[in-house]
């Protein structure tokens, strides 16, 4: 009898641990650009939705420049917090004030956050196991938006990672008629959204990424699974949308793109 009670206790503890472990609480990471960024007052208030940020391993060097830092934290967390505020204000999505940073490390945490964003994916260096988990995540119904990578070199590196995830799926240009550009705003007229370098150099592009590319990977039902924003820096636009030096028209389009993309994610 005692043995059975102990067994039940053990099983209960395992189950409880499993449940608690299944969805991790919010955690603030050290960013490349920001340290000890102040949390919003309501950061602990649970909500229906938040956008996750993908933690991925990055190459130490891509353009021959030895960066040596975690590319996934670019613009983090200022960009995320601004975006989430924007989503709250512009849509009826019940949005948490803070993002969730998740890593495809083999456990189930990634599946708790079906709306995923990855920055600087021109530097990502996914392991086979991570690629496989991202594939499973996307096929189960997850959505991935990638942004802030520029030119041919970063594109090629992104494609290498994407091919690991989906060896059998093509990256294609998203047609203007696709609902992703119309779900909330009609975004037929889009333009290149530059990063903060525009403020200092007036240059819209980085490297040889002269033209903004709106691309995607579709699932078997014709829905965008991976929304690819190449040769643009929406992350910078959200991050600097409160900076008077950064042009409003870029920030505005970045928000409208975000509203459309995430609303598309929640409707398709």
């Amino acid at each position, binding site marked *: 009898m005692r043995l059975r009670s102990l067994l039940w206790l053990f099983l209960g503890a395992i189950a409880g641990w499993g449940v608690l472990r299944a969805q991790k609480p919010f955690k603030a990471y050290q960013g490349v650009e920001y340290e000890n960024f102040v949390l919003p007052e309501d950061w602990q208030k649970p909500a*229906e*939705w938040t956008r996750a940020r993908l933690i991925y391993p990055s190459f130490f060097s891509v353009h021959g420049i030895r960066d040596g830092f975690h590319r996934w934290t670019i613009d983090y967390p200022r960009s995320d917090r601004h975006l989430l505020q924007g989503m709250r204000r*512009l*849509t009826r999505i*019940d949005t948490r004030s803070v993002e969730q940073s998740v890593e495809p490390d083999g456990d189930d945490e990634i*599946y708790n956050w*079906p709306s995923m964003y990855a920055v600087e994916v021109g530097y990502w260096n996914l392991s086979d196991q991570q690629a496989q988990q991202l594939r499973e995540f996307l096929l189960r119904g997850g959505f991935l938006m990638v942004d802030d990578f520029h030119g041919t070199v970063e594109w090629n590196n992104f494609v290498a990672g994407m091919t690991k995830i989906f060896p059998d799926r093509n990256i294609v240009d998203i047609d203007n008629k696709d609902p992703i550009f119309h779900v*909330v705003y009609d975004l037929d007229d889009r333009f290149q959204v530059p990063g903060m370098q525009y403020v200092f150099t007036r240059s819209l592009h980085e490297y040889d990424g002269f033209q903004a590319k709106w691309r995607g990977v579709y699932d078997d039902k014709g829905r965008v699974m991976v929304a690819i924003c190449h040769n643009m820096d929406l992350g910078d636009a959200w991050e600097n949308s409160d900076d008077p030096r950064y042009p409003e028209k870029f920030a505005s389009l970045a928000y409208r793109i975000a509203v459309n993309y*995430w*609303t598309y994610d929640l409707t398709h």
Partner: protein
Amino acid sequence: MFEFLFKYPEAVFSRGTFVLLGGWPIWLLGLAILAAAAGLGWVVWQRAGSGRVAGARSAAVWVLQTLLASVLLLMLWHPALSVATLRPQQNIVAVVVDDSSSMAQADEAGGTTRRAAAVNVLNSGLINDLKGKFQVRLYRLGDHLDRVDKLEQLNSSIPATHIGDALKQVVADAASLPIGAVVLVSDGADNSGGVDLETVSEIRRQRIPIHTIGFGKEKAERDVEISDVQVPARALPDSRLSAIVSFHQNGYAGQKAKLTVKEGSKIVAQQIVTLKKDGQEQSETLLFNAGTAGVKSVETSIDPLPGEESAKNNLVTRLINVDARKPRILYFEGEPRWEFKFLRRAVEDDRTIDLVTILRTTQNKIYRQGIANPDELKDGFPTKVEDLFGFDGLIIGSVDAPYLTPGQQTLIKDFADRRGGGILFLGGKDALSDGGWKQSADVELLPTILPDRKDTFIRVGATVELTAAGGDSLITRLVEDPAKNKERWKALPYLMNFQDVGQAKPGAVVLVDAKPMTGGRVPMLVTQNFGRGRTAIFATGGSWRWRMLQPLTDKSHEMFYQQLLRWLVSDTPRKVTTSTPKQLVSDDSHVSLRAEVRDRTYLPASDAKTEAHILGPDGIAEAVDMRPDPIEAGVYTADWTTPKPGSYLVEVVANRGGEELGRDTMTIRREDGVAENFHTQQNRELLEKLSSETGGRYYTPQDASKLGKDISYSDAGITVRETRDLWDMPIVFLLLLSLRAGEWLLRRKWGVI
């Protein structure tokens, strides 16, 4: 023995009236008995003294002497029975002999058939006995009544027995003929649903006693018989259906049997069952897929067991109309959220459901998906009856009630109540109590009593567990095996959130409970019928984790939502809905058709011209006018006779003022030579009931010879009232003798003599 002691047959006593023929008044008899009792009491008391017959002994003597005096006094008043008897040779006795194929069963003594045993009983003097007193008319009974001249004409070839119809004909004959009694010789294996009350009342009114002689075994020794198979008359393509098979057996208790459901030659479900006790009704449920649209003939069978007396009663056929229609469901959601996305995905592969959604994306914008044309629902949630009632089902997500006008709220109520649609309420931050639905016009739609507070949507994880009702429901069946299904539900990933929806209302059914991590248990999935429709609550917005947190190959989330939404709309009626009590008629030609007709706003249309167009085998084509039902508004009925066995396509069309209100089709089938394979044991209960209700008596073949005497006593036909003296019954003398002897024995015991 009875007749020896009481001088007359039982029938005289059961049908006669007690009378006193003596001229003296009855009160004088009472007085005389009292006087005798008093006198005897005084004498006994005087003699008692201190002798041996004192106290209780003297009381016993007084009782015995008083009883003796009372009986003697009663005899002086000349007791008798007044009884109506049939006048000899002036009355007709109808001898109705069952000539259906069940009478060919050789289960009588010596392996003779029931018919042979019946003929033998009738020929062994009974018919001659009757002919000595009455005119005898012979009838053969099957699906109708025929007159025959000789018993040799019987051949047990009629494929059905309709006792009720036959008796109606006898009653009709009695209006013009002096029918004094009916003798029904049968196994009671009626397959028209028994004898209706109307027929029995008419027989009682005409006072015709029906005497029955029962043949056949009352219980099979080794047999399995399917009593009934319940399947839905209509279904949506690819739906999961249940066949509830009721059966009983004798001689195989504890053994295994194989139940099979087939559609054509294809086995769609199979199950091994353990047979219960002899004679005990057993019910098993088999699940199968409805398949593609069309009329499905579903055969349910139990594999014959070794030594079974009859295997013909192991197979039952049913028809299912799998509709080609694609019900439309409107899902109105108040906020973009994962539950919305994953619900849409869950049903997108369901070819039978057309999901149309309206989503409030921003404060001032809606986003529509699945619409039939660009203008559909462009102004948001419908405000007109025609716009909303075009849907078969409605899902209301995280929508605050005040967003809808009072008119729209009333429309939602009418959607379930009048339209007969299904409404599903989902949990959410703006749903149910938190969304003000407690104060809305639709509160009575909800299957639970909502809490009167606005903090009921709780973002705490919760596991789920099936209730007993959920274990039986097709909505929640993720795995065929009920025990495994229960475990499957327990193993589902926890929900992101749940909503406290209060207790289920009376009549509502809780299928799933949520067990929050904070403790306790609350209803999660609750269903109920409301008006002509049905409503349900699925009290969460977090079931999407069942999709994201389980492998791609796991289809639990999709199955659950598909089954829930099919339940929501599968019974939603159209403007014209046709039905019949029996789609498959066995050895019967009568078909009752019923159509419920509604106008464009789903109000009953009582002034429609409703016609049934029937197409049958060999080019049979007929149009049948359906009459309005005088009691139920919008209901039309018609009776029709199938000319021959086969399948019939019935299309009912309703028109009003040149406008077609709607049409509906169904299939019926007539099969002959099937009914007599079932209920083959003697139905003694029916025969006994028929006799007792009409003043007759049930006889076994062994005591049928008494019928000749009993039958004379009847109130029907041409009768004469006779009185039968009772004073000279042997029982009276025996009683007097016993009383006197009793006193003598007592006195001897006490030593007085």
